[in-house]
């Protein structure tokens, strides 16, 4: 199907790859976003509980007999144990002086804002920790005192949570990518489907079908279809013009040829020297060939024209064959050949009688021409299944088997016909006519006896 096309890339492949790329980027983005969000949530929830813990320790700070004392509530540390089994550290500092807890915990820098809780991520005893520091002022007899409570927790739980979410997010991203990839492939396919539909409908057409494409196409394809339709219209016009030209030419040649032939025959009667007679006979033969060719060209032009505008009516193929044979009988008798017709009354077919007659007479003309003198040309009408078959049998040399497929092409002549007058248009005309009627032409050689067989298959109406 692609033979002869200069192919560079594929819209579908490019579209699929682009959609896959987009899906991969989005899946990666999804993963990163989920992870960022999860990290934020995990940090926030840890920060919240650290804050609560620090606040409850800070609330327990009081001044007893001039000294700041802190009575750490059991819940302040056990609440941290409720959500995870991370290690817990704390420190209480009063006016910058260590009071209790883990003295060497890192110090949170005072933040610029008014936030009473300051968070830092740091290291302590070989592990990463998250630490909150909260400060409160108490007033003593000697002035205000500042109590700072820091509570820290290792990040094991947070790390585990993130690892679990990261695994899930990876599955999610992968699933998203697969779903998007499947949809992408389907989308790419559906995007190129109108192109395929158009290609199919154009390539399915018969050789004569140059009608404009009528089926609806997407807007993007309209320029292509318009161009295609214009191209076909031009092609059709130019074909018609050349057919007309040929017909015109043939017509114009035929009349002078007839005059020329008459003159040549008159001359033949007058001359007596054998070499002159031979030359004149050769001349007449050439004239015959030319006028036959002109006739067939005319016939073909007529057939080409009429196949576009069939005048259909019911036809009895036997009667039609009888009529045609009647007209050709004098020609056959002149060459000492008999034409015979056999067959039962066939079912009617619907068709253009003039065309079918024309096709048949071209075939009979061939048959008469190739049949040896004194032999018969038989026409037999039968029907097979839904077909009405009209077969012409001769006793000529038959078709060369290697030719059979090409013989119906225009101006093609068989190898066995080199010494006989002919243009090679007869079989072409016959085939075009049967095809115009929805039938086909079958060429074969007769079995057992010498001769060829040409069968017209017409669908019965």
């Amino acid at each position, binding site marked *: 199907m692609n033979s002869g096309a200069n192919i560079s890339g594929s819209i579908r492949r490019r579209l699929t790859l682009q959609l896959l790329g987009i899906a991969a980027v989005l899946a990666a983005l999804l993963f990163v976003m989920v992870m960022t969000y999860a990290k934020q949530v995990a940090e926030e929830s840890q920060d919240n509980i650290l804050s609560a813990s620090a606040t409850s320790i800070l609330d327990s700070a009081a001044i007893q007999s001039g000294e700041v004392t802190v009575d750490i*509530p*059991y819940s302040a540390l056990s609440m941290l*144990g409720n959500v995870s*089994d991370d290690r817990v550290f704390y420190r209480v500092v009063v006016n910058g002086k260590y009071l209790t807890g883990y003295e060497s915990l890192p110090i949170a820098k005072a933040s610029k804002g008014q936030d009473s809780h300051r968070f830092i991520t740091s290291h302590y005893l070989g592990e990463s920790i998250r630490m909150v520091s909260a400060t409160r002022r108490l007033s003593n007899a000697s002035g205000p005192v500042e109590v700072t409570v820091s509570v820290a927790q290792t990040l094991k739980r947070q790390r585990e949570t993130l690892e679990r979410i990261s695994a899930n997010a990876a599955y999610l991203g992968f699933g998203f990518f697969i779903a998007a990839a499947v949809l992408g492939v389907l989308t790419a396919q559906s995007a190129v489907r109108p192109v395929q539909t158009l290609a199919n409908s154009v390539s399915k057409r018969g050789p004569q079908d140059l009608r404009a494409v009528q089926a609806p196409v997407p807007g993007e394809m309209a320029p292509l279809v318009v161009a295609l339709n214009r191209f076909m219209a031009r092609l059709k016009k130019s074909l018609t013009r050349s057919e007309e030209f040929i017909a015109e030419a043939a017509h114009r040649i035929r009349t002078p040829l007839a005059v020329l032939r008459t003159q040549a025959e008159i001359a033949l009667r007058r001359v007596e020297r054998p070499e002159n007679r031979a030359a004149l006979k050769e001349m007449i033969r050439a004239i015959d060939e030319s006028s036959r060719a002109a006739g067939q060209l005319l016939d073909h032009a007529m057939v080409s024209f009429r196949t576009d505008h069939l005048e259909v009516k019911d036809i009895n193929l036997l009667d039609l064959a009888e009529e045609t044979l009647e007209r050709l009988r004098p020609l056959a008798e002149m060459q000492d050949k008999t034409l015979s017709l056999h067959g039962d009354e066939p079912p009617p077919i619907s068709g253009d009688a003039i065309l079918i007659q024309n096709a048949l007479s071209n075939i009979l003309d061939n048959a008469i021409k190739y049949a040896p003198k004194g032999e018969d040309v038989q026409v037999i009408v039968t029907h097979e299944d839904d077909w009405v078959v009209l077969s012409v049998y001769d006793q000529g040399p038959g078709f060369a088997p290697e030719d059979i497929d090409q013989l119906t092409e225009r101006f093609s002549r068989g190898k066995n016909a080199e010494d006989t007058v002919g243009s090679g248009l007869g079989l072409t005309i016959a085939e075009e006519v049967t095809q115009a009627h929805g039938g086909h032409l079958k060429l074969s050689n007769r079995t057992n006896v010498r001769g060829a067989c040409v069968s017209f298959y017409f669908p019965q109406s």
Partner: protein
Amino acid sequence: MRILLFPSVLIMLLASLLSVGAYEIEQHKVFPAPQEGANLRIISNSDIDIFSPMVEAFQRKYPSVSIDYTVVSSTELMTALYDEKQVFDVAISSAMDLQVKLANDGFTLPHNSPVAGLMPDWARWRNHVFAFTQEPASVVYSKSAFAGLEVPTSRQNLISTLRNHPERFLNKVGTYDIRQSGLGFLFATQDARTSDTFWRLNEVMGSLNARLYCCSADMISDITKGNLAIAYNVLGSYASARAASDPDIGILELEDFTTLMLRSAIIPAGAEQPEIAGTFIDHLITASWSEEGADYYPYPKLNRNEIAPNLSLRAIRLGPGLLVYQDNLKRQHFLQEWQNAIIQQ
């Protein structure tokens, strides 16, 4: 007046040799290996008599491991590991708060036990602290001393009984000296956390000139000798062993609440045989938590449900909450308050 009874059964085997540090050794025993092999050093506050079946069972499975078993009090255990950084491969203690503090402050090694699935989550903290017993803090009394009296069933009852019969109980009430005993301190803080009756009971005991002890074994001994009529917060597991041979010993689990302690094992950071130590801990876990149990397991059978069918049983939770009473300020305040209550001039 204060009466302090120091351990009477000090078996100071090799004590002079071993006590290079300041911590005080109570008992020491070497379980030689039937075959040549590695040596596992265990520091523990579990008496050799009770614990040795576990060690022997381990050696039956691993005959090439000789075990060096040192018994110290829970506070001395803390001193040895926390302050002096002595080298031991396994530390076993009933003072849960000290075990958690050791683990929290980075004095332990992690152990990813292949049998951790046997234990409920609440029976371990991180992969550092592994509990293998559940032992109630009980009241142990002399049945003869209570002749004619109703045996109290709750702290309220106990308070009124003591208050109403000072002649019978004066100088005859015993409890832990929580300044010395880590387990006593743990029980006291958990009691204080649970109910205010703890302080009233302490005041009553103080008014009766309560005698203070370092360990459960000594309190039980004094009950059998008739020196004590009643001892509060004694390890029920030790008492049951003695009750079997002395019919005069009665054990009570108070109905208002009874604290359950989880004895636990850790691998100290300086362990020289951490892998064998891990195997030993796995052995403890299997003996205690597996469905089929083990005939050599010397402690009360474990209850796998955190909420015991008997609601009055309160298991102490392993976790950072236990660090609270280890806070210097908090500890000092608590000890001060306790002394004010129990030591009355």
